[in-house]
């Protein structure tokens, strides 16, 4: 661990050259492995943060823990897919520590990112990507580049993307800004070292969930085991139905890309359409037409197709048949 200075934030303020410590469930591990080497660490985990209603919207302080957020009655009633997503991630111990702001900024679990002896453009820009021809079962099928095929591991961020959440930040110059959750994280392109669009020292202060979310919501995570495991792939769906017509359709996919993947092509295929199994298949196929497997992860394409179709089937009650 490279020596660093540590201070505890008194108030939510941003300054350049600083890394923020939330629950530390990911950053501290990465510091021990010297994958992350912050020189100044500012602990923002104890800044006051709560969950409050504001004009129908919900405002979540960045320091609210995943455990608290998942258990909040308002969240469970109106944004149930967010609660489900949070509870499907990590373990209760980790959720007790992990924060809302920090969850967005957790880093990929790519084996080659974690092994400092291996080439990784995300860890060391320009060094190459050993995952391309390596063990890449967990890697991206959408929006990847020849520089990086890593996926973002968060469940919460997928839910936030589907719910059209907004992230409020303050920059080092004191200016605030609002970033759609869908755009907070980015695709790798030729700069996979940048997971997100935040500037140096920019601090997430709160997350806003818009009022009147779609009534029908579902989060489903496909995982290798029932206990603590990152998603193989996951889906968040939110939509309204009126006279069997789908409206306000929002779909986000996890485990498929460098960021939570808003399935806009599928959304377009479904918006205004009658609930129908063939429409679901068309939507899935539209979304996956550009999907690329890298070997070990080829199976993600048919799995995601099945996941989109069955999630839509369930969220629209096309099939009343539920798993035991």
């Amino acid at each position, binding site marked *: 661990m*490279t020596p660093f200075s540590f201070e505890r934030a008194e108030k939510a303020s941003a300054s350049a050259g600083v890394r923020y410590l939330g629950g530390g469930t990911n950053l501290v591990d990465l510091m021990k492995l010297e994958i992350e080497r912050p020189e100044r660490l500012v602990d923002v985990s104890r800044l006051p943060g709560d969950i409050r209603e504001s004009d129908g919207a919900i405002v979540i302080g960045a320091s609210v823990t995943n455990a608290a957020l998942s258990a909040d009655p308002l969240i469970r009633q109106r944004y149930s897919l967010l609660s489900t997503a949070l509870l499907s991630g990590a373990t209760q111990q980790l959720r007790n520590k992990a924060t809302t702001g920090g969850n967005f900024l957790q880093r990929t679990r790519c084996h080659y990112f974690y092994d400092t002896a291996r080439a990784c453009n995300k860890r060391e820009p320009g060094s190459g990507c*050993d995952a391309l*021809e390596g*063990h890449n079962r967990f890697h991206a099928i959408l929006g990847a580049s020849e520089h990086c095929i890593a996926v973002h591991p968060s469940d919460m961020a997928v839910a936030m993307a589907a719910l059209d959440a907004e992230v409020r930040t303050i920059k080092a110059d004191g200016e605030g800004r609002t970033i759609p959750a869908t755009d907070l994280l980015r695709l790798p392109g030729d700069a996979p070292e940048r997971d997100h669009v935040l500037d140096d020292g920019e601090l997430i202060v709160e997350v806003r969930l818009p009022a009147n979310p779609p009534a029908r919501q579902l989060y489903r995570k496909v995982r290798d085991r029932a206990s603590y495991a990152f998603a193989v792939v996951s889906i968040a769906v939110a939509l309204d139905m009126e006279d069997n017509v789908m409206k306000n359709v929002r779909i986000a996919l996890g485990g498929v890309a460098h960021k939570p993947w808003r399935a806009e092509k599928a959304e377009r295929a479904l918006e205004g359409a009658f609930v129908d199994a063939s429409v679901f298949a068309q939507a899935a196929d539209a979304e996956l037409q550009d999907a690329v497997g890298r070997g070990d992860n080829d199976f993600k394409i048919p799995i995601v197709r099945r996941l989109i179709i069955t999630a839509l089937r369930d969220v629209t009650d096309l099939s009343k048949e539920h798993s035991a």
Partner: protein
Amino acid sequence: MNDQPTTKWIGQPLDRVDGPAKVTGAATYAADYRGDQQAAIGFIVEATIGSGKVSQIETAEAEAADGVHLVMTHQNAPEQAPFGDNADAGRFGMSHAVLQNDEVRYYGAPVAFIVADTLEQARYAAGLIKVTYQADDSVFDAFEHEDDAFAPDSLDGAEEADVDKGDFDAVFAESAETLDATFHTAAQHAAAMEPHATVAEWDGDKLTVHIAVQILSSARKAFANTLKIDPANVRIVTPFVGGGFGSKLGVHSEGVLAALAARKLQRPVRIAQTRRHVFSNGPHRTNHRQRIRLGASADGKLLSVAHETLGAMSRDYPFAEAAASPTMASYAADAMKIRHRVVAANIPHVDSMRAPGEAIGTLTYESAIDELAVQCGIDPLEFRLQNEPKQEPASGKEFSSRTLARCLREGAELFGWETGPVEPGALRQGRLLIGRGLAAAIRPNMMQPAEAAAELYRDGRLTVELDMTDIGTGTYTILTQIAAETLGLDPNAIAVRLGDTDYPKTCGSGGSFGAGSTGTAVSKACASIRDTIIDRAARLDGDWAGVNSGDLRIENGNAVVAGRSLALGAILDAIGGDSFKGKGQVEPGKAHEDLAQYSYGGVFAEVSVNADTGEIRVRRLSGAFDAGRILNEKTARSQLMGGMIFGLGAALMEESLMDMRFGSFMNRDLAEYHIAVNRDVPRLEVKMLDTFDQNSNPLGSKGIGELGICGTGPAIANAIYAATGYRTRKFPIHLEDVLDHLPAL
């Protein structure tokens, strides 16, 4: 088999006698040891090539870092015997030299060892070391280098690499029903909760090593052979071990590094390997390819069996796993062909792990047998029963006892196995495809040399000492029960002391032989005290002549038998001593040479497969097992349950991914290397037959630790077949493997 004697303490579900020490933190594991002098902390710098040489290593920056006392590399490491020297001492006792020259033997081998005041300082300094390598051609993938395969000189779990019985090719060619299936089983790491850890401390020429190992006597040899010192000057102390699973049978690089550094610094050195380091500086089970060919008559009589395995042996480290071991013992067949082949590879040490041989052998063989049964149109339980052998199929040896069929039948009853044809995928609950499967479990029963010393004091307290280890299995408890039984003594009056080479030498823990071997030695040590008491008492009081020694009890400092009572003090006064001392010793005898000895089980699984996503979950596991006489009903059950959980992991999760371009394991933490944990484990039902096998040892017990793992994995695989129609050719089984067998949407 014969009747089990009536007992008071043996078999009772006694709570672990070390339980309170463990839950209060009083139990000290290797890295918990604190001596008079504060230890410095070590950290390993790993090689990042699989094979080649260190051409340059820059250490100045690390040496200058805060708190650093030593940067040890091959350039300044003390002289040691070359790695592998004293091969006669076996792979655990031979020289385990580290940093002996510029050569890199495997990916992750230590190239430097940093010792600092704190872990953080040492770890930071490790990052300041700059190493330049000259890599050479290396072998990581055994299958790519199959042309270089050879039959290993020795094999863990079988006497010969090759076994031929009858003419396999001819019988196979004439078999009405045949199966030719090639399986792949994964590399695995034991992933014990306690990592490999050591505190090494010198006092002049004498070295004391507090180290996480399963076998103390071979650890002592390893240090003596490596450091070229007298074994009498090496003391190994290991009172508690946080899980071994084979990974701590021998010593590992961290132990030798700590001993070398402690001598150079004249200060104790402590190191607990990091979890990532354990994946290269701890041993692993290598991946195997196993081809199984089976032939049967149309009515399901097994006629021909071939099992050919290929895996990697790490260069200079002689270990190969007998994956075909269960094949040689499970079912009768006229013709048998067994081949074990290995390729020498530049990979981290491959060694015994959780039921070496049977764990991966039953995975494949019991899957293949199941497939053949279905092919013959016979219920897989019935198929197994009708191919039950009279003698050990490969060797023709008589069995010491044979209860496999009984285990299968009782397991079937416990589980509620329904015979008759089942169409795969026919059983559904909503979105879930339900499948049920079974498999046989079999595991060789071994005996190893062991000695024990017991001492009974005037007040009726007993101490028992031996260099056995308790690796979490319950050894302290069962040895207490055995001593209590033999002397008719309350367990609370007994102190069992383990884990110190100052105590009599044993085989340690491994191969499920620990309880039977050391339990017998303890029983004999206590019996010798008992006999002394009766003999001496008879001299003092003629009434004692001819009493049944088995009826003796020690109560309140008195020897009591059938209405007679004498103070232990009175007997001791007559002898002129302060205590009674007894020694016990055991060696494997003829019964272990001449007879085929096994523990048995029948394991049944119910799984669900999500019809949408292919996600596989185990819903129910039941097993009936025979491990001879049960020494402690509670710890034995825990052993079997733990084994079943590992079997579940082998079927569905545990897989160490090596990148064959580099020879490095990639998923080196427990978020990526999945071990089955609470939510993955369903209700486990365990039935123990509780028999008595006098051929095994005088206690009648058999090895139990590794039995539960056997059979569980293939029972799950066979259940997945029943759910989906998918017959696996690889382990672990992932959701994508069943994708093509899911119902259309």
